[in-house]
């Protein structure tokens, strides 16, 4: 099994979610993150003092998938998340030893 992690722009989340659902992925977990990279942050000014916020808000998405689906799922996310502008994010895959569904104790592919 694989864990696909994607760092995406928050506004693309809805599209990614829908694309994954359409593909047949049944579940996912997201969290808030802040990214640093080519895309620059922004400046704020308070009483004449300027602050630069270097990090940009991102969404971190995790999907566990069967080995066979891994590259397809990456492709699905890639398409849905792409805007073509700097800061679109990254996707990566990590090998997973085992997955368990807490409710039932099922393991492996059954747990997805």
């Amino acid at each position, binding site marked *: 099994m694989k864990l696909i992690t994607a760092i995406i722009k928050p506004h693309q989340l809805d599209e990614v979610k829908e694309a994954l659902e359409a593909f047949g992925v049944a579940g996912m977990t997201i969290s808030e993150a802040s990214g640093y990279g080519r895309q*620059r*942050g922004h400046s704020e*000014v308070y009483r004449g*003092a*300027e602050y630069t916020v270097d990090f*940009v808000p991102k969404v971190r998405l995790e999907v566990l998938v069967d080995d066979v689906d891994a590259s397809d799922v990456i492709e699905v996310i890639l398409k849905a998340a792409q805007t073509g*502008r700097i800061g679109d994010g990254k996707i990566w895959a990590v090998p997973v030893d085992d997955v368990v569904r807490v409710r039932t104790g099922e393991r492996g592919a059954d747990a997805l």
Partner: protein
Amino acid sequence: MSATTFTAADAPFVDTGNTAWVLAAAALVLFMTPGLALFYGGMVRTKSVLNMMMMSFIAMGTVGTVWVLWGYSETFGPDAGGGLVGNPFTHFGLSGVLDQIYGYVPANAATGTAASGGIPGAAFVAFQVVFAIIAVALVSGAIADRAKFTTWTVFTVVWATLVYFPAAHWVFAFSGYAAETGGWIANKAQGLLFGGAGAYDFAGGTAIHINAGAAGLALALVLGKRIGFKKDPMRPHNLTLVMIGAGILWFGWFGFNAGSALGAGTQAAGVWVNTLGATCTAMLGWLVVEKFRDGHATSLGAASGVVAGLVAITPACATVSPIGALIVGLAAGVGCAYAVGLKFRFGFDDSLDVVGVHLVGGLIGTILIGFLATKGSPTGTAGLAVNEGLFYGGGASQLWAQLEGALSVMVFSFVVTYLIGLVLHKTMGFRVSAEDETQGVDLAQHAETAYDLMPLGGRIGASAHTTPSATKATETTGANA
């Protein structure tokens, strides 16, 4: 115990009790605009709360300044003809106002009534300016999340001058109070449309609420819908702010309505009670609609009901009985709870329901006077004349007068505001870019974010350049969408 000599030929004098109440009331109404800023600010998304609040604050700044310069004079200066507008130059800079006394009633030997004191001219100036401010601020709710701040700033000045001051002159400038001749709605309306009596609008159902509501609709049409309207979740980002705002509005509204008596007597006290009663039933009405329609009574509903009730009782508070006030409130609560859905049906993005609450609420209150006006009202029990309404056997004449007042302000406001909005939109641009809107007007227009609540303070990964920037701040947000 107060004691003084009395001579029949006494010069006009100030009644300290009336003045105390009017000054306190003016402060209360001033407080309503920050309250409105919170009420509105809590309803938008996190990314635009500051801009929302700023639209109210800047209205305080511009309208207050303009009022001192020409606004007071344009509203309450001697009528420039036809009851349509006051002369803006007579009292420019408030010249010749501070040493005046308004509302003094001389003794009447025939009836044996004593003289009663007036209020200083400046107290009247104070009380009226805060009305002008909030009328302008109210409009901003229709264009949440997407307005250019500079254009809005210009709009506040233009709209106050071309729409509010004239409308306030029509409704609030009673002949013989501040100037000899005043506005056409306040004084016998000469039957322009339907003939008959002058309209009752005690504290501004027409000049403030119908006016702001119609203007809000016009601006919402000029600016167009927010990106994601009807599709994206745009739920209130902070309902505790909405509740604080509603609380402040309610509090301040006693100044608004009871202060409009311009004195502290029987009428003011009765108005106070009516203002409370209507607000209570409006809240209940809105919540009952929600409970039955949606399954839950919400806090946003309670706050909205409060405001709807206050809006509706504003014109009516002096001419209906306490029971009448309960009815006005209930009608407004139920009516507005449904009216806020209109924008989805007709597809105009009046973001924070200026139409659904202020226009509709103002209409309900203004028109119900035609049915519910009675001598058992604060005005009647204070010994003043009341032209009774349809339900009290007074016939339909007052109802026609009410319709005339309400509709004329509504049409005037909508048309002129639409034109002002359009001109500004074509020249300065009234709407931010799609990218700025998506990213949030706070950052785009004010270079600020409202909250930074991370446990250790200071957004992680931010750095400061505390030397005041000599050059324009450059936003480096290139592709941050």
